[in-house]
Structures are given as C-alpha cells and as structure tokens.
C-alpha cells in the first residue's frame, strides 16, 4: 500500500484540527460568503415554501453549511459531486446558478431540471453535480460508479459522495465500500452526521462509530468537526490528494447539525429547543467565521455588511426569477423520457 504512514491513522483517530493550514484572507472571505449564501438561500426557500410557492418535500441545509463549503474548497475542476435530497447547499457550493436552483424549487421552466425534478432531483453536467437523489443511500453506489468512471478513463478526477447518518445503515452503502476498497476507486465518502435520521437519534439507530464503518474493508475513517469550515477544509486537504493518488477511498464523518426539521413538515419534537439553541449560539459555522474575520482584522463590520447585502441581492434575484419564470410548457410532460437515438 502506497499510503504515507503518517496519513494512515488508525480509524479511531479523530481529526479535530486547530492546525488548519493558513487560508488566505480572500479564501476566508469566500468561505464566509459561500456559507452565508447557502444560509440566506435556504431561509428564502423556507419562506417560499410557507407561501405555497415550493411544494412537496423540501429539506433545508441550515446549520450544515461548513461541510460542503469546506469540502468543495479542496476539489479541482473535473471532480464529481453527488449527494442525497438535502442538496441545495451542495449545488450552490458547486457554483450552480442560484436562480436555476430556486426556479427548480418552484417548479418552473427556468429550473435546472426544467421544473421536472424539484428540490430533491437536480443536476448539472456542466458543474459535474450528479444529483440530488431521493432514495436514502442510492447515491452511494452511484457515486462509487462516478469514481469508477474517473479511474476507468484515467482523468485524474475524484468523486465526493455525500451521505447522511441515516444512509449509513443501508446495505448498498457497504456493497459500495467493498467495491471501492477492492478496486481502489477515487471516492471520498462524506458522512454528514447531523445526529438525526429524520426523527431517530444516531444512538437509537446506529451501533458503533460511523467513521469506523469502513474499517473491515481497510478504508481509513476520520471524524471531523463539521461546524468549522477550516477544520473541514483541513481534513479535505489531507485526504482528497491521498484519494487522488490512487490509494482508494476514505470516509470522513463530519459532525454537524441541522437547525430546522428533517423536512419542512417536521415539527422536530425529538430534540429539545435548548439543544438546538446551544448549537446555534455556540457552534454556528457562519458566526465562527464572522468572529475570525473581525478578530483577525481581515474584515470590519462594514465589509461584512457589504457581503451580506451582496448575498441578499443574489437570493432576492433568485427568488424573483423563480416566481417570474413560467411553469413548464404542457408539452414538456412528454419530453426527456428517453433520448431519441
């Protein structure tokens, strides 16, 4: 095995890095802005849902922003991304147009799937974002297949495959771990552990530690503080190149938290208000970054307000577009079932 010894930590090791590599001021400002964009976008989504403009299921990413922003910051062009149905944040972090994402939420023709996919099913071949999948755990074999394609074509790319703490108990996840390890596929499995699989707390559903779930396949696994974007970025910087070098898959368990319910219709009675409030006040990823920016003098209040305004404008524009874009033409009912050969 070609792994450098210092990197092949025992899977029980915890990376809780306060030794994050120095990020440039520009990078720090970008992480702040990207996380804030997701936060404001999701708040707007919740609002539009409440107004009946967004239908069906809608799973908000509020609280988990540091995960996707930190991981994506370590990727290169050509790397592929796949996740489950809590996917709005991932799409924004991949650089997809907020207008197209929001218009898909409202089911309009300007949406990424022309209004035919909705919140849970969106894609962008251009941004190498492969969905947006509604069946818990199904994105794991699919993401493993994306990694297979990277290796088969020798393009040097990796796949980041996101899954939740609920999905880790699906059998197909282990079928995927086995093949990925067996064939040394370039895939980073990112378990976004927000502590609750819908209403079931992790300890009521999952035996053992989630980052150790690949241990018997020889897949290194690490736990990372998912509420701090620099910790996330540091873990990704350490392991993404290792995967890219052909050493096989890795599992990163990002300890995170969602402030809202599982979906819009979840009253979230399975946890206390105090628990949510404690996370919001003590561990919020955006507040942490704001403090860092102010304390280090990289930005002052005016600069942050300027970012806030810019983000708010982007989200307002997206919401406006999502309401103005027409519904799909009725003829679209019949299109995209098959590719005409």
């Amino acid at each position, binding site marked *: 095995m070609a792994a450098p010894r210092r990197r092949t930590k025992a899977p029980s090791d915890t990376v809780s890095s306060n030794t994050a590599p120095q990020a440039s001021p520009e990078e720090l400002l970008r992480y702040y802005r990207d996380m804030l964009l997701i936060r404001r976008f999701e708040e707007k989504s919740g609002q539009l849902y409440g*107004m009946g403009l967004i239908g069906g299921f809608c799973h908000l990413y509020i609280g988990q922003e540091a995960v996707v922003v930190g991981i994506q910051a370590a990727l290169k062009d050509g790397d592929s991304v796949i996740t489950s149905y809590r996917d709005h944040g991932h799409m924004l972090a991949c650089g997809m147009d907020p207008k197209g994402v929001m218009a898909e939420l409202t089911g309009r023709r300007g949406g990424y799937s022309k209004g035919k996919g909705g919140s849970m099913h969106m894609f962008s071949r251009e941004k190498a974002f492969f969905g947006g999948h509604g069946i818990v755990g199904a994105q794991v*074999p699919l993401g493993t297949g*994306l990694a297979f*394609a990277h290796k*088969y074509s020798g393009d040097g790319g990796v796949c980041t495959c996101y899954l939740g703490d609920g999905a880790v108990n699906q059998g197909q996840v282990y079928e995927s771990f086995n*093949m990925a390890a067996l064939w040394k596929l370039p895939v980073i499995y990112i378990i976004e552990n927000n502590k609750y699989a819908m209403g079931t707390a992790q300890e009521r559903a999952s035996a053992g530690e989630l980052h150790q779930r690949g241990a018997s396949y020889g897949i290194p696994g690490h736990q990372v503080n998912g509420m701090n974007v620099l910790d996330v970025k540091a873990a990704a910087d350490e392991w993404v190149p290792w995967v890219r070098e052909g050493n096989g898959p890795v599992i990163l368990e990002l300890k995170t938290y969602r402030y809202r319910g599982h979906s819009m219709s979840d009253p979230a009675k399975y946890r206390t208000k105090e628990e949510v409030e404690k996370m919001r006040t003590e561990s919020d990823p955006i507040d942490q970054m704001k403090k860092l920016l102010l304390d280090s003098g990289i930005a002052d209040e005016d600069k942050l307000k300027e970012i806030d305004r810019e983000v708010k404008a982007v989200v307002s524009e997206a919401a406006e577009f999502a309401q103005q874009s027409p519904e799909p033409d009725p003829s679209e009912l019949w299109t*995209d079932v098959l*590719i005409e050969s």
Partner: protein
Amino acid sequence: MPIEVLMPALSPTMTEGKLAKWLKKEGDAVKSGDVLAEIETDKATMEVEAVDEGRVGKLLVAEGTDNVAVNTPIAILLEEGESEVTNLSTAEESTPKTAARPAVQGEAPAASTLPAAADAGGPAAPPPSEEDRFFDRTVKKTVREALRDAMAEEMRRDPKVFLMGEEVAQYQGAYKVSQNLLQEFGPERVIDTPITEHGFAGLGVGAAFKGLRPIVEFMTFNFAMQAIDQIINSAAKTLYMSGGQMGCPIVFRGPNGAAARVAAQHSQDYASWYAHCPGLKVVAPYSASDFKGLMKAAIRDPNPVIFLENEILYGHSFDVPESEDFIVPIGRAKVLRRGRDVTIVAYSLMVAHALAAAETLAGEGIEAEVIDLRTIRPLDVHTIVESVKKTNRLVSVEEGWPVCGIGSELAALMMEHAFDHLDAPVVRVHGVDVPMPYAANLEKLALPQPENIVAAAKQVCYR
C-alpha cells in the same frame, strides 16, 4: 414598508390550520429565526419562524382560531424606524403575496394514456430496418455465441463499453456467455464483481451517468430484484428528473424466466415488470440473429436497456449474418410465419412453442401468423394491429403470470386500436398464477405448452 406575515404551508398537503398560540405580542422585537407562533396542522404542532427582522405591529388573527387558510395574513411586521401601523388598511388591501401562486400557464394536456402522436391514424410504424439484407451470408451460431460476438464487436468498436457482473471474467460466465472476453479485453474491461447486485447495478448506473457504456450482467434476472431500485429509480427516471441532462447508456442483461427444475425463486419472467416503467427499453429476443443484432443495438442505445435472455435458448443454433454491420433496431417485431386465420404473438422461448403450435394448427387447416415481439418496450403495436386486421384474432403467449402481464397489455391495446377488427375476444396463454413448483410434472403444468397455444387458437377460431 410593513411586512405581512402569512399563514404558512407546513406540509405538502396543508391547506389550512389552527393558529394555536402567539409567542410574540404586539410591540415585540423580532429577529430572523425567532419563533412567532405555533400552528396546528392535521399532523403536528409546528413553530413558525420569522424570516425578516422588525417589530410586531399587529396580530391579525387571534390565537385559538381554527381553519386559517394558507397564505392568509396573520400579522404585520414593522421595519426599523417605522411607527405604528398607520396604514393598516392599505396593508390589508395590498396583499400581493396571497396572489403569489402562479396561474397555470397554458392548457393542461387532456388526460390520455397515449402520447398525442400515437393517436391519429393508428399506432406509429416501427423504426426502419435493413436487417434482412444481411441474411445472404450467414453462419450457424448458438444464442450464447451470438451474444458473446455482439459484445466483443461493440467492445472493439467503443472503448467506453465494458462488461461487469458475477463470474463474467475468470470463470468465463456462469452460463459461458462471456467466453474469451477477459482474454481479449483484459480485467479493466471485463470485471468480476462480488455478489452484490444492488451495489454493482448502482455502480454501473453512476458510471453511465459519467459517459461510460456499461454492460451489467445479472447471473439471472431473479437476482436483479436486489437491484431493482437502482434500475428503476436511478437508471430509468434520472433523464426525466434532470430535464434531459443525465443520460444513462447501460445494458442490464442476463437469463430471464424459467430454466428447468430450479423452482420458484429462480424461475420468473420479468418482462412485464420492466415493461411497466417509462425510461426503460425492454428486449426479449428468440433467435440467435436477433440476440446478436439487438444486443449491438442495446449497447449503442443512449438509454437503459433491459435485455432478457433465456437459459434454455443459450444452446439453440440459428443462422446468423456474418457481417459485423448487422444490427436489429429496438422496437420492431418480426413476423416469423405468415397466416390468415389467427395471429399468435410471443417472445423469447415461447416463440418456439408458438411456431410448434402453428405447425400443428396447419395440419388441422388453421393458418396461424406468428409474430415474435423481440422488443417488449417500446412495443411494435403497428405490426400486431396490421396482422389482426387480416386475421381478426389474437392469441398472446408469455411465460409470465397473467395479472397485469404482457397479454393483458396486448388485450387492452387491441381494444384501443383494433376493436372493430376483432372477431373473437383476445385469449391469453400464460404461466399459471402460482410460484413455480419444483416437481417435474407440476412445473410442466405451470408453463405454457404448445398444446395450450393450439387450444387457444382453436378457441378464437371457434373450432
């Protein structure tokens, strides 16, 4: 400007709810994320959070009010610096958000089971084919060899094509279909998988999303039930769900239906299961030439194709065109025997029984027209209807169960497209509606036999 807080929709089906409790009172400061009120839906009590910052100017709906419609203004929020609600009446009148739901654009299409294009002038003609011209030079081949040759030719032609499945490489295929492919193409393109159908089916679909052209072999389609979520929810639906972005050029292949004496869990015909699903093409050939020509078409097709083989047919020999350019388009049935008295439609191994039955019937003065469907989806309705216009009678034959089967579909299609041409009700010959028994005599009773087809043909001919 004052902001109206509207009664929110808190679930996909909520149209109204009870405003159970206000947690803010008039004059209170509010910031984004603060809980404003509790609302009871039919399912749960939910909290409503503020989206905007400001101060509560007025509560418009008293707590305890039942049946508050979604989008009804329930409170007025004042922004920084705004004084009392000076122009509440204006605020109440200008309720732009209640009208936010868009008007339906254009007319909804009429509910119909058929695409508009298929309605007028009868069912659409099948895709054109030049397959016949290749039969001037043929060679005898088994179905097994024809399948192997088709895969090998396409793998030589396109480096994106690869084969994966259980025992496809070193073992040379559980049924020896992939013989010598490992030797020619190497382990990067002929890949032995663990016994992990759900996993490798999904892996194949992911690779296809990224532009590869996987051939995924199931040792038998019975085991594909482990993988059916990936086949339907991922392979078949993603093109539609992505607005046409995510094509999935993949072939799922393997033996389907009853073999011999392997009992219920290993003997099942899945044609109607997959044919039910938009986004898939489903192929079930009979002759070695069709196996070869359709396998080549399936591999080149940009869509997911379910390729149903048959273990008993693997060893049967047929004339197969020598040319590597021979290809059979998906979606075209084939008339194997001409006749004027009754149309018999079958697919896969049942075509052999249908031909045998036609021979018997001919001895009794009944000329049966035998159609090999070859493709189950999209079904070549045109060819069947043209035949029924001539014979005015239809017998369908399938190995699968009768309920919601291929025969049921054919009967419905004849009602829609050939009702005036029928001189007798459509008769279905099918597997008996029980799990497949093991005992030799019971198994034979459970499967359609030529004599069942003969009897059905006589029945529709009133003989």
